[in-house]
């Protein structure tokens, strides 16, 4: 009888072969052998991404029934539906990775509810006006495009393929958001004031979006691991600088003011210097203690539990 146990030497060979595949930019598939650290890094990254899409639908959804024209109603409904679709796609990718542990989507939901699985810090923020629907679409999705397009060549095939579709749709979302912002920025004094006020509130969350520059800020960071395994190639700070490069000129061209008088571009280093966001606030947000963290979690938890009879009924039909 052949032993299923492999020797330490064989394990090392397996790992070396895996890292060769990573270095050769080969795509790792769901059924391939992968080191535990790689699987865990992917689960953490993709489940958080998936849940962020689902939880991220909630702040925008607040404005769906209130959208001010028929076209805006159609646009924002389609946009929020896309986000739920991204969540579904990513949770399916995560479910395959969870197979060895016997966990499923229901377990991920429970992890979200008990705080073990986090959702993106930007979706813990409050929305106050219609301009927020525009800023989320234009700048939050714009920030997401920057981080997600960097992973289009991720070493894990199923994630890279899901991102192809997600990024294509995010481009439409950013255009949808930009269109809302343009209408307001070119509108009445009140509309222009509404956009400026919204930008003032969202500027700091947008800086936090990319995470701290190093793990010293919060005590831990997955950015080194994701770079090691060629899931992504750039650091948090590089992403933030790319965001500045792309959006600062666009924001200014609309006649808006960026709420940071210290913001400055250094032509020699090609880097922006800026006022750091409140990283202590960030630490609170990622512990689900942000402005709307508990309300949003509660809304999802409540609706999930209140309708549990539907899932039970469907399982009974399948049996």
């Amino acid at each position: 009888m052949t032993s299923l146990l492999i020797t330490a030497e064989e394990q090392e060979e397996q790992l070396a072969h895996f890292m060769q595949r990573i270095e050769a930019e080969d795509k790792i598939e769901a059924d391939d052998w992968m080191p535990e650290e790689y699987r865990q890094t992917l689960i953490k990254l993709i489940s958080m991404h998936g849940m962020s899409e689902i939880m991220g639908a909630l702040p925008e959804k607040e404005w769906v029934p209130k959208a001010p024209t028929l076209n805006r109603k159609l646009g924002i409904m389609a946009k929020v539906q896309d986000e739920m679709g991204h969540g579904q796609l990513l949770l399916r990718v995560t479910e395959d990775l969870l197979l060895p542990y016997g966990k499923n989507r229901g377990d991920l939901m429970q992890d979200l509810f008990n705080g073990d699985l986090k959702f993106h810090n930007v979706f813990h923020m409050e929305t106050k006006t219609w301009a927020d629907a525009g800023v989320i679409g234009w700048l939050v999705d714009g920030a997401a495009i920057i981080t997600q397009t960097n992973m289009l060549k991720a070493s894990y095939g199923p994630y890279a393929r899901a991102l192809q579709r997600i990024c294509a749709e995010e481009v439409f979302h950013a255009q949808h958001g930009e269109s809302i912002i343009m209408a307001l920025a070119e509108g009445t004094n009140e509309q222009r004031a509404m956009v400026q006020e919204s930008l003032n509130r969202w500027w700091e969350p947008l800086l936090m979006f990319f995470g701290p520059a190093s793990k010293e800020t919060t005590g831990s960071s997955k950015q080194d691991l994701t770079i090691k395994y060629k899931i992504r190639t750039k650091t948090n700070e590089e992403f933030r600088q790319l965001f500045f490069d792309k959006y600062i000129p666009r924001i200014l061209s609309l006649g808006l003011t960026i709420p940071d008088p210290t913001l400055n571009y250094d032509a020699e280093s090609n880097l922006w210097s800026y006022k750091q966001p409140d990283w202590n606030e960030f630490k609170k947000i990622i512990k689900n203690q942000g402005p709307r963290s508990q309300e949003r979690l509660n809304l999802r938890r409540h609706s999930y539990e209140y309708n549990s009879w539907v899932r039970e009924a469907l399982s009974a039909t399948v049996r």
Partner: protein
Amino acid sequence: MNSHENLMSPEYKEAIKDLLLQLADDDFMYSYRGSEWLGLAPHIEADIASSSISQDSMGHAAMYYKLLEDLGVGEANELAHCRVANERKNSILTERVNGEGYYMDTPQYDWAYAVVRSYFYTQAKKIKIDSLCESSYRPVAEAAVKVRMELYYHRLHWETWFKQLMNSTEVAKKKMNDAITLVMDDFGDVFSYGNQKQAIETNRLIGTEEELKENWKESITPVFLALQMTVPFIPEKPIKNGRNGEHTKDLDEALITLSEVYNLDPVAVW
């Protein structure tokens, strides 16, 4: 003024205006209630599918409002957002809340009610759309052909949900039966044309109320027989007739929300 308008008698124009408002307001309110469900459906897949149907329905409403705009009744966005409750022509079924609570808090939305309302409403919409494809008013007949293509999937979707939940646990059956009672209580004005009944019917804008009711009953009979259920009875007299501008407080509350941003400045470009 287009060629259709030239040929219209004032009575014909009044009838088509009324019918278009009924169709537009029905889909507008149905879609609005659907949009409140976003992010809260029992399955992520159910969320995606039902919000797709809500989007399509809003698209249908927008198409009807545009036909009204073409008739000179008013600008489409204004018609959708500015009219007060007693000027609205939607069935009271479409305006009813999804359940207890406001969508911004932690509402107790009832999925059984969503399924029954959607299935019965979509089936009624199919009966109307089939009839509208033969309408004497060509623009609405052309619009109906487009709606019919999407409606095929909506109806199939909700019928599947209806059958599955009616065929499962005792809890589900109880909730579904309670929802059927609630939906049928409000069904009295779904096939009503209100005060414009005679003009709408004699001008052959759409089939008669009686024909359509009969078609609806016939169309759902096989599903009910297969489930060993009695086909529900459409009330002769509606509790309130939305076609005549009679509505519930649910509509008043919905109008405040759906026009909140628009009303900040109705003449601004949004």
